């Protein structure tokens, strides 16, 4: 029982860390430019595909990682300058449609380039082992722990960037009141391009690190995009702190809910009924959580916008 609890909790944190990488960049862009970007999930997918390709070419995942992240970052910058930038002054509907079109395009592009079947990326050799804790009572794959470690390191870096640097100060100010920052002479468009590129790189990083544990396939970014939205809504648009708290919360609640809720229900109600409704309720858990948070705090847990 303890083993199950701990490993499920770790799985939840690992999902949460990936969600944080996705949400961090997106929430900043939403916060500063008030622009909807559905194509953020496509960057995650592209990151995963590039990781698969470059691992195959170089033979080393660790070599492929920085290359794929950098390439995704550049792609993000190109996307921002070529398409999204033209839409900042237009309404949200246009942004939804444009980025919806981009998703269809990217989902098909990867199918054209890499074929319709899923790709699989081997776990890097150094991390391809199980670690034992508490005298072998808890066994957990090293690679998943590495994901958690990298995610937490990135989180620490982002907190430093946002809280301690001049760029971070501008980002925070931009999220709180964009017009005021622009009036003070800051090139808010360039600042946003920078943040967008950073966000694209982080989404790419999430995709790269997810590649060895998931099937790399077309449309893989769509599901995580929606979870990312839930995270941002709960955490509050524009808040890195909110993104971290909400991401881990969503990751743990979703993972634990799926494994534990059916078990708990079986104790409480009839076995047949439990196995029928358990998975159903578990799959809705995070959305119910979102609804509750919204009812109590419509601006999310850590709202960044003050004005």
């Amino acid at each position, binding site marked *: 029982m303890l083993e199950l609890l701990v490993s499920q909790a770790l799985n939840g944190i690992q999902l949460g860390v990936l969600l944080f990488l996705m949400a961090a960049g997106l929430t900043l862009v939403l916060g500063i430019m008030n622009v909807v970007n559905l194509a953020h999930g496509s960057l995650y997918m592209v990151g995963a595909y590039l990781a698969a390709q470059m691992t195959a070419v170089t033979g080393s995942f660790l070599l492929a990682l920085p290359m794929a992240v950098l390439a995704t970052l550049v792609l993000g910058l190109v996307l921002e300058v070529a398409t999204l930038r033209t839409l900042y002054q237009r*309404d949200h509907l246009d942004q939804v449609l*444009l980025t919806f079109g981009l998703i269809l395009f990217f989902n098909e592009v990867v199918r054209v380039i890499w074929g319709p079947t899923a790709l699989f990326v081997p776990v890097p050799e150094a991390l391809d082992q199980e670690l034992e804790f508490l005298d072998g009572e808890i066994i957990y794959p090293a690679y998943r722990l590495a994901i958690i470690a990298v995610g937490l390191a990135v989180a620490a870096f982002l907190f430093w960037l946002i809280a301690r640097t001049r760029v971070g100060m501008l980002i925070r100010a931009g999220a709180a009141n964009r017009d005021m920052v622009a009036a003070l002479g800051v090139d808010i468009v360039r600042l946003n391009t920078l943040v967008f590129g950073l966000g694209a790189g982080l989404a790419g990083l999430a995709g790269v690190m997810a590649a060895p544990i998931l099937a790399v396939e077309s449309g893989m970014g769509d599901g995580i995009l929606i979870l990312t939205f839930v995270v941002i809504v709960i955490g509050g648009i524009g808040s890195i702190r909110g993104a971290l708290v909400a991401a881990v919360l969503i990751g743990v609640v979703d993972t634990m809910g799926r494994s534990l809720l059916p078990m708990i229900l079986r104790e409480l109600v009839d076995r047949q009924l439990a196995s029928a409704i358990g998975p159903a309720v578990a799959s809705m858990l995070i959305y119910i959580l979102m609804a509750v948070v919204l009812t109590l705090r419509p601006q999310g847990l850590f709202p960044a916008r003050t004005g």
Partner: protein
Amino acid sequence: MRATVLAALAIAAVVPLVTAGLGGGEFYLGFATRIVIFAIAATSLNLILGYGGLVSLGHAAFFGLAAYGVGILAAHGVDTAAIQWPVALAACAVFAAVTGLVVLRTSGIYFIMITLAFAQMLYFLFVSLRQYGGDDGLTIATRSRLGPIDLGEPVVLYYLSVLCLVGSLWFCHRLVASRFGMVIRGARTNTRRMAALGFPVFRYQLVAFVLAGVMCGVAGILQANLTQFVSPSYMAWARSGELIVMVVLGGMGTLFGPVLGAAALLILEEVLADWTVHWMLYLGPIIVLIVLFAKRGLIGLFDRRSPPPAGGHHG
């Protein structure tokens, strides 16, 4: 206006005769029925998106929910429309009311993301219901029994769908022109001003949200009877995106725009798919170009006098 409506009705009426003349008439008639069904769904979305300015990215949820209502009841042996359809529509009304209570408190980006999230919740709910097919979907053994009317006859289902579309358009037309419609349209331009005038905007929007959900449910019921199949993909987020594209492509906030948009998008998809496997490679950029350059939609090509879509979406 009157002449256009009569012409459109005449075209709709002769479609079965034309498709019967073509080889593979069954296919074309089924395709025409699909266009009509999606025209109903797009019209329902237009009610809140076009007139109300509420960018719902989860509208397909109602489509799938109603289709599942038909499918699940049929799986339990209840196949009379007198029970199936009210239950399916009531499910849509309840889902719309409950989610509407949450989403309508928000606006702008929040509204978009949360409607998407709730639709996805329903999607995953039906994926997890393995007793009803889960991911693979549910085959509906018998179509709804509607008295002496045999829905298994493709022509009958087609005309019933057309009838529903005409009803939806008429309802939409009357609603938009009514006082209720004025409030909804006013709230699109300026929610705060409408509230200052003393209208409980939230309640009006909630009613509109429920009406749109139920109307979309009608389309879902027809679709379940057309394909005799329902799966979670009916309410996938891409479906919701397509519905938005239909509304905008045709001309949002116009009565017949969504009908044109539904026909245009489905025909475009069919033509592209016929031509290449990678049709989405072309559809995506086409959507992007429409957004950038043709915001008034197809209806703008036909009627140059109609006013451009009013700006000032809040958020």
